[in-house]
């Protein structure tokens, strides 16, 4: 488990998402990466019942990199509380259906090929919400290191080399405060949630 950076990749005006993914795949393969299966990160949000006072949102995320875990993040005003649990948490949420109702139409996921290139692991994800293509998220992980500040410049260089100079690369909002702490899988999930939140706000793009 190393430090992961998530980066949105803009889709050019007259191009489709598949085209961009193929383009990036070609670049990665040219660098010598090998494809190691697929990956999937999905997110479902639950709203608390109005009777329980102020409305709270619980986001349930699954990451194929941690197949035995369910990540849940509770948004309560200023603070986000996360809980990592095992697979039974999904069943638990079904039990809580009275108090937390699922917003089915906001179920969002990012999936695509997963590449390994030396110590790096690159995932090219197409973000889909209700079968509508929303954009492209690129996840780059540098596995030997767990401190974000120690590896950030390396990751930036790698991202710039991969994505081209046209894409501005900046450290993720979530990581800014946690640059000097040990990186955990929950931090990746927080980054995904951040980007999913942004994608939910924008109206649908063209179909992939």
């Amino acid at each position: 488990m190393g430090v992961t950076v998530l980066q949105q990749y803009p889709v050019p005006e007259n191009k489709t998402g598949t085209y961009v993914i193929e383009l990036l795949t070609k670049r990665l393969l040219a660098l010598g990466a090998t494809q190691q299966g697929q990956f999937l990160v999905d997110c479902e949000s639950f709203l608390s019942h109005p009777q329980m006072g102020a409305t709270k949102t619980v986001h349930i995320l699954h990451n194929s990199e941690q197949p035995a875990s369910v990540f849940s993040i509770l948004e309560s005003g200023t603070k986000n509380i996360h809980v990592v649990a095992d697979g039974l948490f999904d069943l638990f949420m079904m039990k809580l259906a009275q108090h937390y109702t699922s917003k089915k139409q906001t179920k969002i996921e990012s999936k695509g090929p997963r590449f390994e290139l030396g110590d790096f692991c690159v995932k090219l994800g197409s973000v889909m919400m209700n079968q509508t293509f929303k954009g492209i998220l690129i996840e780059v992980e540098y596995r030997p290191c767990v401190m974000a500040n120690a590896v950030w410049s390396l990751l930036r260089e790698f991202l710039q080399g991969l994505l081209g100079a046209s894409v501005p690369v900046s450290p993720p909002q979530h990581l800014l405060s946690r640059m000097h702490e040990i990186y955990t899988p929950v931090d990746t999930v927080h980054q995904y949630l951040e980007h999913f939140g942004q994608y939910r706000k924008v109206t649908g793009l063209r179909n992939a």
Partner: protein
Amino acid sequence: MANSVNISIEAPIENQIQEITYDGQEIYQAPLSMSENLARLAQKIDFAKSDDDYCTIKKEPEVEVKSEEDSKEPGYQSSQWPWDSVRNKLRDALTQVCVLADVLSIAKEKRYMILDPIQAEQQDTRPMLQVYGRKKALGAAAAVLLAGVERLRASETMRLSRNMPDFHIDLLRLRQNWRLKKVSNTIVGDLSYRTAGSKFSQTGVFEVTKAPEDQIAQAMSLNAAGPAPSALRVAVPPELQGVAFISVLCQKEQEDVVTATLSSSAVNCPGSMPGEGAELHWQQKLEAAQNVLFCKELFARLAAEAVQLDASIPHMVVGNQIMATVLPGIQLLIGLCHNNAQNSNSSNPDAVKPEGTAGKSEHDHVLEHSLHQLLRAVHHANTHHPFPHPATGPLGPSKRRCLAGPMAADRYELLDMSKEQSLLEQIIQQAQHFFMRRRSEYVLDTIAKEVKDPLIVSHWNALNSPTQSCVKINIMASGYDAVCRTSLVVHVGEKTLKCICRDGKVRHLSYELQELRDLIYCQIYQHQMTAVQAVGRCMGWQLLASSSHLGSGPVEPLGNASSCLLASPNGDRMIAIRCEPSVGMQVFIAQSPRKDFFSSELVQDKKWENLGGAFKEIKLDKMEGKNFLNKMELLMACLSSPS
């Protein structure tokens, strides 16, 4: 009762406690008002009872049914109004009374209805017949009981008089150690390891019967001195009879692998337990049967694993034998030897004599024991799940797997957890380690025998695991062990050796023994060089130069030649030592200046003599001294003398 004291009992004035709050305050129920109290008491009146009485008098079943229906209904409605049920009951009673009054008035007219007495049922009134019948029945019952008593008394007296064993006491003893249950008329027991966590499909049902008395008497007459025979007989299914054990053999690979050693191991298996002719005690019989079942489970499991595992050299399962390659050229043979009583009788008796077993390797009791232990560990793990037991989650996965979700383990860690070593793999590892340990022991012992100077002492750790042990090797010269000793530690693993040398270097060696041998030889010569320097230091000699890897001289087959140069305290003598592992130690001495100086044409001044002279080799084997260091000490002492 003049002294009697009046005791008045009354209910406490306190009201009933309705609730106790968390701070300990008690909330009382308000007392019932008069009307409420009346309602409560009225609820308690059992109208149904009086209804029943009424019905029995009238003998009208329709009324009874009706009243039951009615009595149910108010039960549902009673929550609405407290007097509801009372009212309904009263109304029913009124209806019934009205109907009764009507019926009576009609009956009085005698025009439409006449009340006739009901004819009582004609009873069989022949008293003598009944008496005889009863007498006969009672007589039959009494005869049965008396016969039983007679039999019990007879058997008891016979048992006491002839000292016969008691069936029930034996059954009680059996019950203390074995699981029994009664199925209709028979007593059936279970000797399988199911309750201990086994998942083997074969059952281990046995039946308990009472031994015939004549057999007991016969057995008692045969050996009067021995312990009393049991009144129990246990019948064990034929597939669990006899003796079984798992034979484990380690042997050099042979050409005809299939015909390897099963015959020899089967010969060694005793066909019958001692004293088979005389009936065995049930305890021994059951234990033997349980052992057969255990061996069968163990072998079935090993065979299944041998087929599933894909080793580089595939394991072979032929008949009741498994063959696995432990190390190149060495095979592990695991066989199930099961001799039924029937088999041994049918097979020719001269198979019993051990033929051709001398050349073959012996049955390995340690590995057999390990196999038993491994299967028992599996049984134990099947029944003992790690705590805490979750109230909802699945029971069974390891603690690490339980924590994998909350700790966000990634896919590699999860894959790691799913790997489980099979019994066969574990036993192969143990066999490998066994061989590695024996080979290392052999190498160290032979080196210690070959090399007398210096001494090689190896200490084996008494505590070791089945797959790892550790030996500490000390190299020293007798009499000089305080001056210099070289120690190294060798960890013997499954297929590799790990040597940790004195300088902290770690060397990993393969299962080839020559590597260990070479390493020890290198260490011996290194020891000699350092020891001679240490002796020199003690003697006041000065180390001028030393090199452990000389570039000069012929190429050594192992390691490099090393050398050192020592100067005497006053600097006029020098000793040079060269050590080549293939040759041994060579010692040279030189002297400068020489005591006698003759000026020649070339060397005219004595000062040139200080440059050092030619080295002359010393014939070490001709020197006094019990070992090399002793010789060197004597040499140095001799050269230090100011003559």
